[in-house]
């Protein structure tokens, strides 16, 4: 039993964070450079657990929370899951389809540059072809486009671990998003002065930041535990991953809101970064959401 990062994980985490700082900073989330996807593939993040690389989910969750922290493309989640479960059928970027009931149109997130979309449902993953003649519309998250499409031919997997895998990656993104908001708020609270002091000196602001730290730490611990439980193919893995997603989603949203309050007027502006975390957090609520009923089921 060891829930700290091992040396290899720590090295990968640091390398991811360093690369993101230089090439994919959060502040640029709404207009990523054209060649970015190629770089992400080169870095190996699109297929960390795919046949060939075969890293464990714990390591993947650590890396994906770093990616989530800079609001990396949503398509990375679906692409990484697709490479693990449909390695033979795909090549390149895979967009993320939200669960829908036939024949209602599918909503596909981050469709740019993708030919197929991966749909998550609690019961499994399915891969759908995407039409060539599609229009991309904005979403609330300025980093993410969407398209709508009709139901097409699909391949699926019934492996129970597959939807858990995607849910875990989405949880990692949420934890990263919560971390980002916390750090942004704490940094601003040190920098910004009012009444001749840094605003973080005032308990009212300090405690908003402390609560952000609590939420992020709680969610991150559960994320790591959940990733390990998936690696161990624990019978409880579904429970633990759902718990991680729920806590991650809450942390992302609550921290996203708190971060704006800490920033005051600046936090409401479009040019400052806080709203990017908030809007990403809202989008994440709809991606592989945790099933509350599952969280009530008897532990194994």
């Amino acid at each position: 039993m060891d829930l700290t990062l091992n040396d290899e994980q720590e090295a990968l985490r640091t390398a991811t964070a360093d690369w993101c700082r230089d090439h994919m900073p959060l502040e640029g989330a709404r207009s990523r450079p054209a060649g970015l996807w190629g770089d992400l593939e080169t870095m190996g993040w699109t297929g960390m657990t795919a046949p060939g690389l075969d890293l464990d989910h714990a390591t993947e969750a650590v890396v994906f929370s770093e990616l989530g922290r800079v609001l990396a493309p949503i398509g990375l989640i679906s692409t990484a899951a697709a490479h693990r479960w449909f390695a033979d059928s795909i090549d390149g970027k895979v967009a993320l389809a939200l669960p829908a009931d036939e024949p209602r149109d599918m909503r596909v997130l981050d469709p740019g540059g993708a030919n197929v979309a991966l749909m998550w449902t609690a019961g499994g993953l399915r891969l759908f072809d995407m039409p060539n003649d599609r229009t991309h519309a904005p979403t609330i998250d300025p980093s993410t486009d969407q398209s709508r499409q009709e139901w097409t031919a699909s391949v699926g997997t019934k492996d129970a671990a597959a939807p858990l895998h995607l849910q875990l990656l989405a949880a990692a993104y949420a934890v990263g998003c919560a971390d980002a908001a916390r750090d942004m708020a704490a940094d601003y609270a040190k920098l910004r002065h009012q009444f001749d002091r840094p605003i973080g000196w005032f308990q009212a602001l300090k405690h908003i930041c402390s609560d952000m730290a609590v939420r992020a730490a709680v969610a991150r611990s559960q994320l790591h535990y959940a990733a390990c439980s998936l690696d161990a193919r624990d019978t409880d893995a579904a429970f633990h991953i759902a718990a991680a997603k729920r806590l991650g989603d809450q942390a992302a949203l609550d921290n996203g809101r708190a971060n704006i309050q800490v920033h005051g007027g600046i936090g409401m502006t479009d040019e400052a970064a806080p709203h990017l975390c908030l809007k990403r957090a809202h989008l994440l609520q709809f991606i592989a959401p945790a099933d509350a009923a599952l969280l009530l089921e008897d532990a194994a």
Partner: protein
Amino acid sequence: MDIGFSVEETRFREECRDWLHANVPAEKRPLDAADAIGFDKAWQRRLFDAGWAGINWPADYGGRGLSIVQQVIWLEEYAKAHAPWIGANFVGINHGGPTLILNASEEQKAYHLPRILKGEAIWCQGFSEPGAGSDLAGIKTRGRIEGDELVVNGSKIWTSFAHVADWQELVLRTEEGSQRHAGLSWAICDMHAPGITVRPIRKMSGQTEFAEVFYDDVRIPLSNVVGGLGNGWKVAMSTLSFERGTGFIAEQVKAGQEIAELVTTARANGMIKDDRIADQLSQMRAEVAALRAMTYRNISEVVRTGQPGPEASVIRLFTAELGQRLERMAVLLIGEDLIDFAYGDDNAVQDYLRGFASTIAGGTAQIQRDIIGERLLGLPKSR
């Protein structure tokens, strides 16, 4: 204690209702700023001509000179009739005008008040600065006295309608080296004066309705100072006190309309069957009712004593936080369609995003809690 209205007041309410019913424009207020200004001015003029502008403003300056209760009745009926937001006239009607009534010279009042009421002069506010938000006394914009003029340098921020305004209520430091609340003055600044630059700021909801204003040797006649040089803090506070009087009527009526709509929506889409949703809606219906009761209580206090009671600061905080809860519920009831929000959309998601301002602008929720603890409960000052 009594929640009834007099025969005269009830008749007045009917007059308001009848006129509004016949005159509220069918078209919505334009979203585009350039179109909106024309709309706002025309609508304000129509209100003035029909005798609905400045109901409790002095008759000498174009008002009706009626009671504050009648003003409340008008505002309630106005909101109930879904009459358009007064938009660009907001600062003049709700801040600038009332401040002038309380503090300005006869000459200043005679010139400005009728123009505000007629929608001829648009006002904006100039209080906050990049370094002076919650700490309003940290103002650094300075006005050097040269002859009979102030020469102004500095900048203001979060100024709504700066790009269309004719006048600004500008609080600035007129005594060199003065600290905090001392040495500030409240002046009427001509927004068309040379040396003023306006930089629009885009909100996270997409609008650019506020701006940063820069002053580069802007000249303001000393005769435009209101309430005397060095009395700016006192003058500015008198506006805030007004805000805490009838300033909440519109928000309170709006909250009532919002909760009614939310209940209707939740019934229609079936989400009301979720006990969490139903419970939150019940809670907010009770809170909205209480907000009206508090507002009435506060108005009664103003009628009785001439000023709002100490609980006015409670109304301010409660209104802001209740408003945010309503907006969050509205977004929750939308479900996945939330994702479709894009800059420029005029819907519940936009209201939600804009609503973050309500616990920030005009004193953060944290500052409001300090004020309540200190003024209402007598706890020691933290700052």
